[in-house]
């Protein structure tokens, strides 16, 4: 296997960026907790692997095309999108094209936060995924700032029951360890584990009972991430049980197991199913691509003349196919005909027509 130099650069840059933000956020490592070194090393390695994988993926011709077009279309508003010649068959006017920021904001809110597309697929899966993604996001949002030394707690010199919260060297808040605020802060990771466990139970039930999933699922892609998340959540809760109810018994062991499971999960992210959290950034570009394409010139099938896609999409796909080494061009007396200029419905008809012709029917 050859090393992709561009991806290697991205990997090293991502790893260096994590080290840099740790150094800057922790005041030159002054507030960095050495006990959390394993988590930090895991984060650096995971960042490098994500950087490598993301670059390799984003360099593929179709991904590259969407990212390139996405950036172009987000930055400019098609000035004449509403007056493009859409032909006599298009009775409805072209839809208005919102500003790129509007499309981006809407796509972020609907796809990433509300995850509407999953709700449309199944309410069960929506709740399951919200619990898993919400719980994991909350856990990472708490853990990373603590591991990186961005946030730390100090007790007051004259009152050990009062805690100060310091973020990036700035005093943010002071609270009593008996306050509701302290309860929420100290148990936030337990709350996240609770949400994650609900999601895991739902996911496990689905994996065991859904005939479609059972037929197509694989251990590495579908089961392993659930096991890893389960181990992280369970060992995290075991730490709380240990210091709350067992007087710290086994805390050291659980701490090591928990750290190992978190590092394993971090290192799994770039190589397995969970990488989709990065791949879905492409959906943002696609959302803009669709909005602009719907308002722009349309492609008409060269067989039935039906409007079947945006001309931009058809043209870009021809470029992508060329880059991938596919050549669906037919030589004709008046030049070439590209199969991309024929709609999918007509392609299905042509399959039957050509088969019928071949057997004389």
């Amino acid at each position, binding site marked *: 296997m050859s090393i992709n130099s561009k991806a290697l650069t991205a990997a090293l840059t991502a790893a260096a960026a994590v080290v840099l933000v740790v150094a800057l956020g922790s005041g030159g490592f002054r507030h960095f907790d050495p006990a959390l070194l394993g988590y930090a090393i895991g984060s650096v390695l995971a960042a490098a692997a994500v950087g490598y994988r993301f670059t390799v993926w984003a360099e593929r*011709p*179709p*991904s590259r*095309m969407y990212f390139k077009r996405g950036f172009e279309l987000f930055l400019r508003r098609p000035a004449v999108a509403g007056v493009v010649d859409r*032909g006599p*068959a298009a009775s409805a006017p072209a839809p208005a094209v919102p500003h790129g920021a509007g499309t981006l904001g809407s796509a972020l809110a609907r796809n990433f936060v509300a995850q509407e*597309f999953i709700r*449309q*697929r199944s309410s069960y899966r929506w709740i399951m995924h919200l619990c898993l993604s919400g719980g994991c996001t909350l856990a990472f949002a708490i853990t990373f700032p603590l591991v990186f030394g961005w946030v730390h707690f100090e007790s007051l010199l004259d009152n050990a029951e009062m805690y100060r919260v310091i973020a990036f060297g700035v005093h943010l808040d002071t609270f009593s360890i008996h306050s509701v605020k302290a309860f929420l802060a100290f148990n936030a990771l337990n709350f996240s584990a609770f949400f994650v466990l609900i999601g895991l139970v739902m996911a496990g039930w689905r994996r065991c009972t859904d*005939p*479609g999933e*059972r*037929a*197509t699922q694989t251990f590495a892609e579908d089961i392993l991430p659930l096991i890893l998340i389960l181990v992280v959540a369970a060992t995290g809760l075991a730490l709380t049980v240990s210091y709350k109810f067992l007087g710290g018994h086994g805390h050291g062991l659980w701490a090591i197991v928990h750290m190992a499971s978190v590092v394993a999960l971090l290192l799994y992210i770039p190589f397995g*199913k969970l990488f*989709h959290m990065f*791949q*879905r950034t*492409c*959906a943002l570009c*696609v959302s803009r691509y669709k909005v602009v394409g719907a308002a722009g010139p349309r492609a*008409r*099938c*060269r*067989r*039935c*003349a*039906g409007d*079947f*896609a945006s001309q931009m*999409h*058809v043209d870009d*796909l021809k470029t*992508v*196919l060329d880059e*991938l080494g*596919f050549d669906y*061009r*037919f030589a*004709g007396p008046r030049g070439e*005909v590209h*199969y991309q200029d024929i*709609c*999918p*419905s*007509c*392609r*299905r*008809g*042509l*399959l*039957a*027509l*050509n*088969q019928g*012709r*071949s*057997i*004389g*029917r």
Partner: protein
Amino acid sequence: MRPAPDDLEFFLDPSRCIGCQACVQACGECGTHRGVSMIHLEYVHRPTGVQTAPVVCMHCEDPTCAKVCPADAIKQDDRGVVHSAAKPRCVACSNCVLACPFGVPKMKAEIDLMMKCDMCYDRTSVGKKPMCATVCPSGALYFGPRKFIEENRREEPVNEFQFGRQTVRTKVNMMTSPELKALPFDVLDFLPWEDKDFDPFALARVRDGAPDVAQSAVWDEATAGKRCSGTCTCH
């Protein structure tokens, strides 16, 4: 005893289709399809006849749909089955829908997910027939041992198609003439504008009012008839 999955093959003969739609109804019953029918039942040339043709995924050896997927969501397994888009990854861009040479993938816009025929993976992976082949009464869709086809059909199965300069090899077989080793695709004979400049809006005007204008490939015979070579089935 149930045959081993790898001893069974899919054979498609659209010319045998009687348009009963049993395959369309059965397709949705498959566990991996979740009530969505993946098969296409296409009218070959609606203005002049009622001939229909079932179109299932041909499961290309080098699937164009998977190659053009920006999210790397379409996977081919060890047995050569090309699956529906992975649900976490699919970004609903429709690249696969537009790029498939057989016009197979379906974009379910309401759920932002591409779904396609996966040869009823929950069934065929354990040696059962796909739902469509189970119910097809005319043998247009047959799933079974190659020996049966060789003994009972005049036509020969091929799994190679020539789309212009592109050769596509598939897991699914198409019944064709015994003289052919690959099914050559002719497009130009079926294009109504072949000997003149393409004017999509002229074609669009004559299509107005067609009952299935949004779905089918139809055109006005007065505009298109003379341009056919005479050897195709549109006559």
